[in-house]
């Protein structure tokens, strides 16, 4: 393949692409858990749709990371043979699926961020990453729309649905801070102009979210909520280990086979 690799910041870019891939994969894995168990057949299908988009992006990103690494690894090596401390996904992606409301809220908060990020990433000087971002951005628009509609439906639905979805928001909120803080390698890439400065997205994100919460008659948590971090540096919640044990079992049991 004839693609433009960034001449410098290659290691940092590889870390960043892995972080994106990991977040997509772990969230897709959580969506897979819904397949066959959704509350409404049409929504079962919608969750699978989103999962499929995320898996598609995961594969493109790992393939690109493998190229940047240049260590002769495959997308599956990166997905199935790295340990928990190597995974850089946002903590929000690894939280257990919870009820349908929890899944919807998590997706909505994630996609609201993805929309901003992917739009900006399309301008990246790294043309390969820009091309992946362009495709993902189209998909994220659909995911965002779907999840926002459900946030509104559940928030402005019954008393029970409002209570449930508000509780989910309050539980998840603490994991949204990670979107807007930069690791060392991200700072390097931002300084080099290779990726957008996503630290500046916080306000636009909040506005996007507030608009939907407002229509949903839901309350946005206060600004001083403590924010968790660690995922991008490989320090996770206790949930990720179990997810990886299940996800990686086949590759660990039968190393080096074709499937």
């Amino acid at each position, binding site marked *: 393949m004839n693609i433009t690799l960034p001449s410098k910041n290659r290691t940092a870019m590889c870390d960043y692409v892995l972080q994106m891939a990991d977040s997509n994969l772990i969230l897709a*894995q959580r969506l897979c858990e819904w397949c066959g168990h959704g509350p409404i057949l049409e929504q079962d299908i919608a969750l699978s749709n989103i999962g499929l988009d995320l898996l*598609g992006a995961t594969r493109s990103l790992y393939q690109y990371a493998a190229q940047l690494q240049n260590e002769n690894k495959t997308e599956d090596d990166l997905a199935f043979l790295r340990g928990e401390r190597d995974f850089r996904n946002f903590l929000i992606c690894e939280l257990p699926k919870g009820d349908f409301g929890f899944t919807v809220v998590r997706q909505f908060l994630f996609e609201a961020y993805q929309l901003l990020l992917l739009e900006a990433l399309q301008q990246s000087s790294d043309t390969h990453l820009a091309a992946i971002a362009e495709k993902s951005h189209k998909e994220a628009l659909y995911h965002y729309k779907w999840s926002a509609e459900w946030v509104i439906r559940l928030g402005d639905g019954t008393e*029970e649905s409002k209570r449930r979805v508000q509780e989910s928001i309050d539980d998840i909120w603490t994991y949204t801070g990670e979107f807007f803080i930069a690791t060392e390698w991200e700072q390097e890439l931002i300084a080099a102009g290779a990726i957008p400065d996503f630290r500046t997205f916080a306000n636009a994100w909040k506005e996007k979210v507030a608009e939907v919460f407002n229509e949903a008659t839901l309350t946005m948590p206060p600004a001083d909520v403590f924010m968790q971090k660690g995922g991008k540096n490989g320090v996770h919640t206790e949930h990720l280990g179990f997810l990886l044990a299940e996800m990686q079992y086949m590759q660990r049991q039968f190393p080096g086979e074709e499937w």
Partner: protein
Amino acid sequence: MSPQINFEEQFQAKVDAEIKIEPKDWMPDAYRKTLIRQISQHAHSEIVGMLPEGNWLTRAPSLKRKATLLAKIQDEAGHGLYLYSACETLGITRLQTIEDLLSGKAKYSSIFNYPSLSWADMGAIGWLVDGAAIMNQVALCRTSYGPYARAMVRICKEESFHQRQGYEIMMVLSKGSAAQKEMAQDALNRWWWPALMMFGPTDSESSNTEQSMKWKIKRHTNDELRQKFIDASIPQVNYLGLTVPDKDLKWNEERGHYDFGEIDWEEFWNVVKGNGICNKARLKARREAHEQGAWVREAAAAYAEKRASRVNEKVA
């Protein structure tokens, strides 16, 4: 002659002339009931059939296989949707249909009460289970009831794709390591007989066949389809370098078909009666999805109502 008899004759004449019966057409009550039973059973099978495959989604051995499997199961949900819709044209709501499943009143294909125990089962299910289903479904593309026949056309296209994917999984495994080949053989051993049972009891034991044939709901007998399936599958088995778990299987030159061993009908009826290793688990999974989803459906309904009344207020 009463007009009733006229209707019935006209109906049968249309069927005989291969003219499709449509939802608003007159049809015998027994025809309607048979169709509701058969289509809803088919719809439930698609939905329950998501579970044994869903069992391997989170453990699929590669990203590509994970995505393909997810897409496949999603297709099955889609088939469920088409079929519930076809059923609704006969005057029964989706909710009622689903409640009949959950209460145990309606059946689904017994094959899904067998457990999926290894990755190779994803191959065997696609290849054999979907393969057996297609044998039935291809015939149903020409079934006399229009909406059912049209749903079947769409379903058949996707199912053939699934079958090829399943066979391809088996192919990779059977050309892989010793452990992978063993996994493939083991899956074939466990799914072969249950797949043969999918065609239902032998014709001599099958109760509904004659009337269904006359109404062209059914176009081939169970035994005909079973034989056709075996004849088509054995060359595929041979190509994989695997063997079916049937010592009586051999080519019969005279008949131009494969002879095969006795099916264990006791096992078949046991699983139908609810004694399969997964019957309880499958229904439990469906019930939990339904019950845990109740608040979501209520919220959606309440929101739709609020919205409608807001629109009305604005209009007024």
